[in-house]
Each structure stands twice: as C-alpha cells, then as structure tokens.
C-alpha cells in the first residue's frame, strides 16, 4: 500500500511515516502543495493524507484538482482547523474521511482500514477474534452462532482492539476513539475500565477470552 503524507509540519509527517511504515505501508512525504501535486500525478497512491494548511496552497484546492484529474487514491483530510465548514467542504469535494488534529495515529490507521474495506470490498466484512465473530457491517458479535448482546460502545471498543490486535492500546487511545467528538470534562474517568469489565462479563459467558489482556497501568491488548 502506497501512502502520500502531505504535511508541512515535518515532525508530524515524520511520526506518521514511522507509524505507517511499521504497519507495512510504503510512505512518501510532501511538505508543500506543489511537490504533493507532482507526486500525486506521478505515483498511484492508495492513500493521500492531506493537511489543509499548506504553505503554498489550500489543501482543499489540491483535493479538487486531484479529483478533477481522476486520481483514484483515497483522500483523508487532516486539519487543525477542525471547523464544521471544512468538514463539509472536504467531504463534498470527494475526501473519503476527515480527521481533526491533534489525532491519534491508531485512529488514523483504523480510519484507513475502514476505507480499505469500503473501497476494495475486502473478502468479508467480518473479523474473528478467538471464538468470536465480529460483523462490522451489522455491528454484531457472534460466538459459535450465538449472538452476544453488547452495547454500541462495547462493540466499538472490541472492534477497535481487534483492528489493532497484538498491540497495546492505551486508555487514552481507547477513550478518544469511543468518545472522540465529545469534549468531556472528566478526562481521567475510569469509563474504559468499566466498559472492558462489562464486555468481559458478556463475552466470557459465551467463550474463552484469554486473548483480551490487561496491560497493567497502560491499557488493553487483543493477543492472538
């Protein structure tokens, strides 16, 4: 998978590059609109991660131009503006997703996976963890054919852990994924622990969940 990171802030593009390379993406970096435009037209990228605030041009213009030129790669708009108007404009111009800065790299990765599934119609829309079958489309969990009754937030949590299997996800990463858009006062809440506790209780009634590990003082991990 080829990814172009269009971001003028070098430290950010560098960290994105490290993370995505570790996830087996081939990363290319452009620090301004001009070089980004050249690269987009020269290489067939699967993903273009586009920062809106570029030094030489508006990221949205680049997006518009690329779409006009028939570029097929998926665009994810990254913006520090976080403004609703940008979101609407970005999506209307053909961006596949929008993510506001500061964002978590794990979140970015899961969004990319979601786009991949959508665009390339991955073999199936299910994910299996142990004896459990997660239907991403219908947002349900089955174990040996039996439906496991979990809440929406619990589903999000399990799905997110499953997407990042074998890697620890910290409580903050999980919190930001589940309560992403909500600006909560209570940042240190133990809601994630409560969610995991409830999730475990519901899952264990159906099958073995040894794969759901607690990383003490840090977070959780699906280990398969």
């Amino acid at each position, binding site marked *: 998978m080829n990814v172009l990171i269009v971001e003028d*802030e070098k*430290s*950010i593009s560098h*960290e*994105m590059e*490290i*993370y995505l390379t*570790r996830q087996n993406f081939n990363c290319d970096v452009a620090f301004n609109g001009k070089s980004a435009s050249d690269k987009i037209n020269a290489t067939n990228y699967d993903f273009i991660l586009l920062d809106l605030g570029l030094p030489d041009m508006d990221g949205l213009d680049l997006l518009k131009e690329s779409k006009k030129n028939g570029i097929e790669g998926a665009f994810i708009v990254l913006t*520090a503006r*976080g*403004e*609703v*108007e940008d979101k609407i404009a970005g999506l209307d111009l053909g961006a596949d997703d929008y993510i506001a*800065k*500061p*964002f*978590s*790299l*794990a979140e970015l990765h899961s969004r990319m996976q979601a786009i991949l599934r959508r665009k390339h119609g991955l073999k199936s829309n299910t994910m299996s963890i142990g004896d459990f079958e997660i239907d991403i489309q219908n947002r349900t969990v089955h174990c040996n054919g039996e439906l496991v009754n979990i*809440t*929406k*937030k*619990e589903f999000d949590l399990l799905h997110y852990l499953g997407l990042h299997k074998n*890697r*620890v996800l*910290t*409580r*903050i*990463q999980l*919190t*930001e994924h589940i309560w992403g*858009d*909500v*600006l*909560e*006062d*209570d*940042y*240190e*809440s133990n*809601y994630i622990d*409560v*969610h995991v506790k*409830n999730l475990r209780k519901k899952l264990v009634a159906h099958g073995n969940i040894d794969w759901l590990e607690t*990383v*003490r*003082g*840090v*977070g959780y991990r699906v280990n398969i």
Partner: protein
Amino acid sequence: MDKIKNVIKSGSQTLQVKFAIYNAISKSFIILAFMALLPLIIEKIVYDHIDKRLQARSEKVLKIIHKGGIDDIVLEQDCSFESYSILKEEFVAIYPITNLSDTINGISIANESRNIEGEQLVHRILTLSFIYDNQNYKLEIGEGISSIDQLKSTIKKFSLWMMLGVILISIFLDFAFVRILLQPFNKIINTKLKPVPAPINFDFTPIPSTTHEFNQLDNRINEMMHKLQDTFQLEKEFISNVSHELQTPISILQNRLENIIVSENVSDEILIRLSESQKTLSRMSRIIKALLLISKIENDQYLKTDQVNISELLDEVIDELEDRIAHKNIHIVKRFYQEAVITDCNKALLHNMFFNIINNAIKYNNHEGEIIVTTRNINNQLIVEIEDNGIGMEQGQIPYIFDRFKRLNKSTAEGFGLGLPIVKTIAGFHKISIDVTSQPDKGTCFKCTFENKETI
C-alpha cells in the same frame, strides 16, 4: 449582565418623575408663600387707593370752605358738621378745636371703629386741622372698610383657583418638556446600556440630540464600548490563536508518544510512564479543544442551518450514554413532547450541550438514582428539563457553575471546568436560556428555554 441589574435599586425613580416631583413641590412652595402674602398686598393696595381718595376729598372740602366760607357748612350751634352717606359708608365731619393740643400737624390716616347712630362701624379716617377765621377746625373724612374683607376673600379664592390651574398646566408642560428633553438620554440608556450577550452585539448608532451633554455622553459611551469590544476581540483572538498554535506541538508529542508506546524495546515501567504522559497530554489537548470550541462559537464560526427534533436528539444522547447510565443503574424517565422541532440551529453543538448536561446528571447522581428528561411546548416555546435526584449543590454555587475553570465540587477535581461554560456558550449561541435549580442531597434541575419561537 445580571449582576448589573442587581445593582439598580428597586426603589429608584426615573429622572422624568423626579423632575416632575421637584417642579410640583417648588411651585407649591411659591404659591403657598404667595397666598400668605396676598392679604397684606391686597390691604396695602386698597388702603393706598382709599387714602388717595380721602386726600382728594379733603382737598375738595377745604377748597369749598375757602371759597364759600365755613358758615354755609357749619350750621349747628357748636359750629361742628357731620354728614353721612345713607349706608354710613362715607362721612365728612368738621369740628372746631377748642383745645389747642388737639391740633394735628399735617394729615393722619388711621382705621377707627366708631359708633354711628347705634351701629359699630370701622372706617378709614383722614384727619387734618385747618384754621379758618382764626378758628382751628378738625376735618375728618371717613370711608367704610367692611367691603375690603369681602374683596380680600374674593381675590383670595380667585387667585387660589387660578394658581392651582397654573400649577397643573405648568406641571403638565414641565412633564412634557422634560420628556422631550430627556428623549435622547432615555434612548442612550435603552440602546447603549441594554444588556447584550457579548460586546460584539453593541449598538454604536449615534443618538441625535441638540443637548451638548447628551452628545458628549453618547460619544464617550461609544468610545468606551469600542474599547471594550476591541479588548474583548483581542482576548478572543488571542485565545483562538494560542489554542490553534498549541495544537501542532501537541500533535507532534501525541504522535511521538504513540510511536514510542508501540515500539518493541520499551520496558513495562517506561510504558506506564508513557501512558501517564499521554494522559497528561490528552488533558491539555482537551482544554485547548474546549477553548477553541468556545471561541469559535463566540466568533460565530458555526452555521445554524439544521432542523432538529430535540426529543429525538435527547434520545440519541441518552443512547450514547447508555453504558454510564447502566453502570450506575440510573433510571431514566422520558416525558417527551414529540413535535419538539427546532429550526436554524446547529445539531452537533446542541448534541454537545445536552450531552454535557445529561452526563453531569449521571456523574452527580447516586447509584440507583433517577433522571427525568422532559420536553414541553409552553406558549409556542420549547422547554427542556433535565432533573436528577443526585447530590445537588449549595444555592451559593449556582451562579458560578458556568464560569470557566471554576471547580466547585471536590469530586470533579480531575475535570478542567469547561463542560458547563461550553453548555452556556452553546445555549447563548442558540438563544436558549438556562435556569438551574439545585438543593444539596435532593438533586439538580437544568431548565432550557428555547427563546427562538420558530418551532414548527
């Protein structure tokens, strides 16, 4: 703005009323004084007239005597003469003076009470002495003054009514004049000193006036409002810019931490500390996001183009919070009015607002507590009430709960105190007034009234 309102004393009166009262009192004083002096003035004027008349008559009598001799007049034995008009209102009398000490120098005029033919009458009497034929005579010319009292009371009555009329007319005229005079002043108060949600809403339209002081006042108020607005704007821009600028370094740190956390050669101990750092960074990031959100709303950077069914929105919020509600085993009662549709609003912001309010109702509730969420339509105004029976708060805390970075409740020591300021800002943006009532250990109620009547 509410604080300003409280400063205005409830018993204070408008300038116009004060002017009217002052005018009425001062005029009444003048008239009372005039009424007290009036009898003296009348007396003085009337006596002056009578005295002049008496003098003229005395001169006439003396002329007749000098021309025709006294004998024609003085017929009686004792050489004296008295003549009264029929009603005894006037008389002329001449007496010879035998005793020289009775002689008067010049003329004397005095009031005297006399018994005339059995009737006690008061006259104004002019007395003078003259010599005729080596004989000293005393001339008395009198005029009755009983009619003066009558005159006095008539004039008094007349002037009293006239004065009352004049006072009434003048008070009315004063009132009208002061009203016209104060018109620009009242306009300044009503437009310039009107409570506004933010300095951005100040009205700078100059108030035309021909009064120099009012023009000065209006100009100075405008100048001060401009200064206030500029300062406010600068502060907002500053917060917005700082928050914006801080996002990039936070992004870098956040991404770097994530990369270090997932790298393989990190010991467990370092991992814990990294995750703690992530938590700290996340806190900072949320504070900045909250500040940015508030400043963006205040700068009108959000659209209000959505049409939202508030009852459905509340359902969504409650749905989103189902885990937290279940965790505390809280009973939710929904009393929804189904057609609670609001137009020209921002759904995401309203969602955020109700999320914060209901989340607080959960957070400050007891296990097995209850939350009643009601939507009602009263006089075409949508009212949303979120009432819990949780820990509540002291009356004195309520005015401060919407202040930024205020932490009142010890149990929220971990929060950053921007949840309710966000609620307030979103409410202000949508013209929703929020009334909070609370009692310790009884619970809290947030009553949101949509002032926008455009419910359909």
